[in-house]
């Protein structure tokens, strides 16, 4: 009502000014739209071409089909490579999360000689170029007469994932109020009970986030894996090799599948968090 009256009495505004005002109000939305377009075009492209009736090379659109989704293992070796990547990713996540969490607690909670040095050294693997890490790990394995393969790859992945786990979990520990643990001790919980009932549940979201991060780092690592995996084909290695003669559409199916899986995990996590807060 009051708006109508204001319109009736207001002087005419030129269309240019009107546009400027609209633009001013919506600048952030325009920017957001552009940014998300930029971020998601590759994903959308991958997803769209997973429906391509491509035949050998999946570079040109040749028609819509559901065949690739119905038979994701259709291309030779693709599911074998995927299984290897999942296995390596799972083991690397498990070990790096356990070890990294322990390191994070040590650095975050205890004062010991060399604490700040360890804190600094933890960052080094993150700052070192992967190509250097991969090459030197390979020569290290060869010195110890270990042939490249499945387990050397797992060890290499654990090594570079640990730093990320430590940093993620440490941030969570730092935000934890030490009075909560004191309160637990005050309420008759001994050290172990305090850790299990209060500390661990409160740090758990950080640990879960670190595990997800470790898995995705391990899953799509190519450089270090390429040096250390020998004849074991992982999914990134498969895609790289396939690129020479044309990537099969099944790779797009698996890529899209992983994307939606990750999206589902994030959304589920959000819903769970909201429920908890309620």
């Amino acid at each position, binding site marked *: 009502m009051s708006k109508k009256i204001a319109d009736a009495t207001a002087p005419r505004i030129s269309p240019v000014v009107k546009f400027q005002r609209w633009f001013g109000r919506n600048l952030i939305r325009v920017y957001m739209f552009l940014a998300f377009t930029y971020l998601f075009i590759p994903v959308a492209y991958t997803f769209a071409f997973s429906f391509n009736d491509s035949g050998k090379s999946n570079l040109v659109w040749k028609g819509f089909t559901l065949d690739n989704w119905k038979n994701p293992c259709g291309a030779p070796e693709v599911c074998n490579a995927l299984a290897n990547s999942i296995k390596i990713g799972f083991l690397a996540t498990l070990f790096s999360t356990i070890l990294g969490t322990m390191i994070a607690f040590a650095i975050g909670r205890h004062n010991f000689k060399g604490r700040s040095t360890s804190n600094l050294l933890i960052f080094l693997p993150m700052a070192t170029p992967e190509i250097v890490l991969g090459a030197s790990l390979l020569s290290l394995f060869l010195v110890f007469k270990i042939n490249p393969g499945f387990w050397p790859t797992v060890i290499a992945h654990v090594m570079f994932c640990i730093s990320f786990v430590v940093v993620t979990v440490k941030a969570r520990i730092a935000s934890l109020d030490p*009075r909560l643990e004191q309160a637990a001790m*005050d*309420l008759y919980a001994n050290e172990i009970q305090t850790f299990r009932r209060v500390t661990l549940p409160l740090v758990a979201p950080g640990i879960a986030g670190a595990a997800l991060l470790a898995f995705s780092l391990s899953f799509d690592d190519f450089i270090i894996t390429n040096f250390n995996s020998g004849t074991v084909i992982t999914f990134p290695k498969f895609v790289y090799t396939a690129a020479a003669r044309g990537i099969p559409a099944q790779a797009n199916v698996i890529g899209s599948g992983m994307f939606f899986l990750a999206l589902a995990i994030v959304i589920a996590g959000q819903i769970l968090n909201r429920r908890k807060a*309620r």
Partner: protein
Amino acid sequence: MSFDASSARGDLILTRITKEYGDFKAVDDLSLTIPKGSFFALLGPSGCGKTTTLRMIAGLEEPTVGSIHLGETDITTTKPYQRPINTVFQNYALFPHLTIFENIAFGLRRRGIKDVDAEVNKVLNLVELPHLAGRKPTQLSGGQQQRIALARAIVNKPALLLLDEPLGALDLKLRRQMQIELKWIQKEVGLTFVHVTHDQEEAMTMADTIAVMNEGQIEQMGSPADLYDNPETAFVANFLGQSNLIKGTITGNDGDSLVVDLYGQKISVPKNRSHAVDNSMYAGIRPEKFRISLLDTPVSGNVLTGGRIEDVSYIGVSTQYQVEMPWGQELMVFEQNDDGVAPFNKGDAVNISWAPVFTFALRGDEDVTAGSEVTPEDLDEE
């Protein structure tokens, strides 16, 4: 060696406790007995060592020197979870991942108590929040969180309940209400409460006994009325309320009183309220004990003459006057507004009088500003 002290009961006895952090002595040779069943307050400004003392009682810190006994049991080095002592933390420290019910049940479950449901519900009713059992701490208001923190502690029926600035985060009105409620709950459950605060009003409202702490030591201990009417040091006189401290000399005896000369005017001070060690002293009088009268009005008791009203502030229940005395000191006088109008004006020449029993005497070498520059309101937590 650690052992289970959880069945210990009785008075809490601190014996010659010192706590050092490097070169800094947070608590300095402190001895203290807190009788079973009392509501005891440790009162002092920021950094006086009161929170450190509380943490040592809780078992969260270990004294550098000295011992802590609960009844006959030495609990100096026992772990917090081995002591029958529970704490209401300053910011409540409710477990954010647990419901209110589970927060309160936490201590009961750790001790393997059978009837958790009944105990939790009973204490939820006591704090009048039974409908919140299923919520999470973040969904509660500050006042509600405060009560749940209290419930979580008292449900364990500890020998001793420690309250660390429990009302500091609440607004003034809610704080007043909780003061009364806490006192009522203490009577209801009959536990020993030890309350740490920098708020003198809070301590006086709730506690049976107050120990005023300053620089790691107990300055004075007693009932609120004792401390207020008969402070032994300038710190206590200034930290608890306000005081007029006038330099004087003891010139003689008169039965149960001392004759004191204040800038040439004679007054009398009860001997049992004198803490002077030689003839040099400060006479102390609380502002509300003074009466103002015009020069021609006859007065009795102690009288100081030659005053001139410098400032008048009307504040509702009372009127505050600043009266300048012949020796240049301004005295503070609070007069009740029980006769309708403020009868004195700026510039009036007046006498100041008061009943001699309201006078206390401090040592002449005291720092008269001690404790007055720390206004409790703008102190932060330790």
